[in-house]
């Protein structure tokens, strides 16, 4: 994927749909997915004459929280701007967005190969493992409104281009746009970043960020940088173009789409040409990127400050309050699990992957700790972690306290079962001398008969393999004449 001559230069623009109750500039429900068309619409999001936008306070707060989670600075004054262009899914003929004074600027996120992978790191190509502690700079995080949904209906006959249908339920839903500097050097880093972004906004509980539902949208811009070694010095020329790729609608295709585009550009560069600076679309069916027909001349958006919305001014206090509202984020939590509970990096990462799992784990630990203090039965923290990770505990139906009890019971019952099992095995051997003789003569199947007999006498649910093991062990101590020693 990365040629030793060409290094990928990738920047990402990700749009995240906020799960506020109402839309960004009006009181229509923002929960548009799967509803009858045009049923969550008002004069504002329909762009009727005379309608005016009033910004959603919660959406703004959540945007700032996202920025803070990405280590951004929050300027004290920001405002909305109009981005003017024509398209049928844009009812006002402009989108209210942010241009010169966005809510959040100049942040970063650290991609930590080993941290994120643990054991898996060994399976990765060497090039990738070198990208330890990769810092991705975040240029800005800002707010804007979503457009309506366009559905294309093909024509009935060949000459009929068909028509497009417009549903304004999605028009005006709050979107947060997160823009990075072109710091990505590999598709792998892009995927890592997306997973991390998704995890963070889910932890913040501001978006479900489900790519397949359009709650998280990605637009990478991709170019290749030519590097050569001259007299032992590494010379690198900045790319003179960049290609934006749209329409990547599924996590599945992120890698494929970007890799395809990188390869396409590499081929062009190797033939001594320069790829055209353009916007391309990912064609899911054909698994290629295609040049898009230009929607309008030179994207002249004629940005100017939105006169219908007064500027937003934060106080340091308000920013502090919003910072306080941010829950412990996954990276920090994972480190704390490693240090505080002596868990492995790998296990910590799995536990913090989803906030609900991490919360459940810590609640179980709390319950367990209480028992310990009260001199009641308790378990080892590592086993709590192992159970949650390996035994697929349904955290929605089993209370943490119940889980602790189950773990305690299972370790007890294991011991109890072993003693009982040994007793019964001995008895069954005594009661079935013919089967024992058959087994000793070499009939392997005889042991299965003995297993059956044993299991009849044991409580239901006992592991058949465990029974077999115990029988075989006991049988091996007998002499060939079959008498119990």
């Amino acid at each position, binding site marked *: 994927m990365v040629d030793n001559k060409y290094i990928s230069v990738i920047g990402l623009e990700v749009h995240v749909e906020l799960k*506020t*109750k*109402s839309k960004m500039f*009006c*009181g*229509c*429900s923002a929960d548009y997915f799967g509803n*009858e*068309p*045009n*049923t*969550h*619409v*008002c*004069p504002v999001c*329909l762009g009727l004459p005379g309608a005016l936008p*009033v*910004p*959603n*306070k*919660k*959406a*703004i707060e959540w945007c700032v929280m996202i920025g803070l989670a990405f280590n951004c600075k929050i300027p004290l004054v920001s*405002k909305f701007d109009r981005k003017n262009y*024509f*398209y*049928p899914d844009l009812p006002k*003929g402009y989108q209210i967005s942010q241009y010169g004074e966005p809510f959040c600027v100049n942040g970063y996120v650290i991609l930590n190969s080993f941290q994120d992978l643990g054991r898996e790191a060994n399976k990765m190509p060497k090039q990738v493992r070198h990208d330890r502690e990769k810092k991705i700079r975040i240029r800005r995080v800002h707010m804007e409104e979503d457009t309506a949904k*366009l*559905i*294309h*209906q093909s*024509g009935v006959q060949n000459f009929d*281009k*068909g*028509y*497009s*249908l*417009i*549903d*304004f339920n999605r028009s005006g839903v709050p979107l947060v746009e997160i823009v990075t500097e072109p710091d990505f050097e590999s598709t792998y880093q892009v995927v890592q970043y997306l997973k991390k972004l998704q995890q963070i906004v889910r932890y913040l509980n501001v978006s479900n960020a489900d790519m397949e539902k359009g709650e998280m949208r990605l637009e990478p811009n991709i170019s290749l940088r030519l590097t050569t070694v001259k007299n032992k010095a590494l010379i690198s020329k900045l790319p003179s173009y960049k290609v934006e790729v749209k*329409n990547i609608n599924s996590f599945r295709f992120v890698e494929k789409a970007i890799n395809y585009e990188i390869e396409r550009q590499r081929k062009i560069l190797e033939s001594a040409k320069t790829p055209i600076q353009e916007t391309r*679309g990912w*064609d899911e069916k054909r698994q290629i990127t*295609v*040049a*898009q*027909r230009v929607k*309008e*001349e030179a994207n*002249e958006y*004629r940005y100017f*400050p939105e*006169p219908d*919305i*007064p*500027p*937003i*001014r934060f106080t340091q206090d308000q920013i502090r309050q919003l910072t306080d509202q941010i829950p412990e984020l996954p990276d920090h939590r994972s480190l704390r699990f490693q240090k505080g509970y002596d868990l492995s990096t790998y296990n910590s990462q799995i536990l913090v992957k989803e906030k609900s799992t991490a919360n459940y784990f810590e609640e179980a630990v709390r319950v367990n700790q209480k028992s310990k203090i009260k001199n009641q039965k308790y378990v080892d923290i590592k086993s709590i972690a192992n159970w949650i990770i390996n035994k697929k505990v349904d955290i929605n139906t089993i209370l943490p306290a119940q889980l602790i009890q189950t773990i305690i019971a299972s370790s007890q019952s294991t011991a109890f079962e072993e003693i009982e099992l040994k007793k019964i095995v001995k008895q069954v051997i005594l009661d079935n001398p013919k089967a024992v003789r058959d087994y000793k003569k070499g009939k392997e199947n005889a042991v299965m008969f003995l297993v059956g007999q044993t299991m009849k006498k044991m409580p239901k649910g006992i592991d058949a393999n465990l029974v077999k093991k115990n029988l075989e062990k006991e049988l091996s101590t007998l002499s060939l004449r079959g008498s119990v020693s």
Partner: protein
Amino acid sequence: MFLMKINVSHIAKLANLPLSKKEKEKFEKQLEETLSYINQLSKIDTKDVEPTSQVTGLENITREDEIIPPLSQEDVLKNSKSVHDGFFKVRAILEA
């Protein structure tokens, strides 16, 4: 400030206005007349002056995240000349 010749075709395209050739010629002249007027602005010294975008001085006007009943689907669609199954219908918009 020198007088810039307005590229009427380009502006008309940006503004999504269908103009005939005759209209373009007519407007070019009129627009340039207007331009000569507004170019007078350059004579005024605005060094160190902040632009006023909100003459009211208002700030931080927002609304709570609450739902207000929407228009009925019928009301949404009824002023349109082209609807289909609850959607607005337009000529095909092809991306590629």
